[in-house]
């Protein structure tokens, strides 16, 4: 498939269309809304399922390749904030602390983007290695420390040790790694036992979840996009491309196959909107949360979902296929 076919196939897949439906519904101010508790419950399901499946596939993965991919992920997560920060300081008048907070979001990852990309890859027949789930888990936290360093913050301030604990035992990291470990421990046999729930209905549940994400992203956009400087706004569009490009280089270096490389690119390109915003409220309370959240959830998330993912798969296949 070439890029155009990929993009077209992605655009007419039910998950992406439900996302767009949510986005449009929010923009026309429909009162459609999924209850918070249900949205949280579904996100827990999705993380469990993706973690479990990744673990169950670990039997097929060489551990050295996994270790190298994890290191590559950590490097990306820690390094990308420096690029993001400098780009923002150069192009906009954002205060240092706001630029640092945004930069931390871009080093870290969006697990939903990762899940959507895994699903898209599966639908295209470009499966990824199971260990990519571990890479995703490893990439959540390092960016936070880079962000704090960029803000000129010592670890002692704003919670210190407590905060490191809070980040490391962050709910999605614990769940992702735990489900991964369980999948690994129970293997094929475990997967068979839970296939109908964690496998068969997965894509349908993803549709429901992306509908909600579309609503959330759309409401966020409506509320505050107008208040963002355009130089900040475009950061949400070019920063994913920079991240993906660097990730593609690293993927080539460590010899990932196209499917896994596209996921590494997606991780690099995605921006956090759960773990990092919460950590920033604790560690950098002076940073305005609405700027970074609008950027990651309202701009970068839809961009990656609709355009980025097919692009990263096409690029990975072209460069490494």
């Amino acid at each position, binding site marked *: 498939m070439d890029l155009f076919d990929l993009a077209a196939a992605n655009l007419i897949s039910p998950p992406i269309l439900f996302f767009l439906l949510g986005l449009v519904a929010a923009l026309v101010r429909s009162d459609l809304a999924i*209850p918070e508790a249900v949205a949280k419950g579904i996100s827990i399901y999705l993380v469990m399922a993706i973690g479990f499946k990744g673990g169950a596939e670990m039997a097929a993965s060489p551990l050295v390749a996994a270790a190298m991919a994890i290191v590559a992920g950590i490097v990306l997560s820690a390094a990308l904030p420096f690029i993001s920060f400098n780009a923002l300081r150069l192009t906009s008048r954002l205060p240092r602390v706001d630029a640092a907070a945004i930069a931390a979001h871009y080093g870290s990852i969006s697990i939903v983007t990762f899940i959507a990309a895994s699903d898209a890859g599966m639908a295209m027949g470009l499966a990824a290695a199971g260990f990519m789930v571990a890479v995703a888990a490893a990439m959540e936290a390092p960016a936070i420390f880079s962000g704090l360093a960029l803000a000129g913050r010592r670890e002692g301030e704003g*919670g210190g040790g407590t905060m490191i604990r809070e980040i490391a035992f962050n709910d999605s990291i614990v769940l992702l790694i735990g489900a991964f470990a369980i999948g690994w421990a129970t293997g094929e046999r475990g997967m068979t036992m839970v296939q109908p729930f964690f496998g068969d209905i997965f894509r349908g549940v993803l549709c429901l979840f992306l509908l*909600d994400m579309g*609503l*959330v992203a759309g409401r966020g956009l409506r509320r505050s996009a107008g208040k963002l400087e355009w130089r900040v706004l475009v950061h949400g569009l070019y920063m994913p491309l920079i991240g993906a490009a660097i990730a593609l280089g690293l993927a080539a270096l460590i010899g990932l196959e196209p499917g896994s490389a596209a996921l590494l690119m997606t991780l690099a390109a995605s921006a956090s909107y*759960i773990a990092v915003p919460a950590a920033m*409220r604790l560690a950098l*309370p002076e940073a305005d949360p*609405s700027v970074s*959240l609008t950027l990651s959830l309202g701009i970068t998330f839809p961009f990656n979902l609709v355009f980025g993912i097919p692009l990263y798969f096409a690029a990975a296949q072209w460069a490494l296929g």
Partner: protein
Amino acid sequence: MQTTLKKRIEIVIEAPVIDRLRRVLDDKGVSGYTIVPAVAGRGKHGRWNREGEISDTGRMMVLFAIVDPSELDDMLAAVYAVLSRQIGIVSVSDVQVVRDEHFRRTRRADT
């Protein structure tokens, strides 16, 4: 019925720091508090609404604590020291309670 004057402190605070606030109140030996979830609101930082959200950032929680008037200043100082840079508001009102023994200040609460 015999009643005693107490102060009711009501704090609207962003969710990510609620655990920190609880720790402060526990350390100060505040005898009790109750937390109620808010679902929507508006303030200087704009409008917000919980529907469909999956992150805790941007949501508010309402914590109220009924304390002895003598503890009030201490407690407000502690709360402000920790939360002054966070998003939220604090207000205080007079209330009467019936069972006074419920509100003795304890040394340190269990965690």
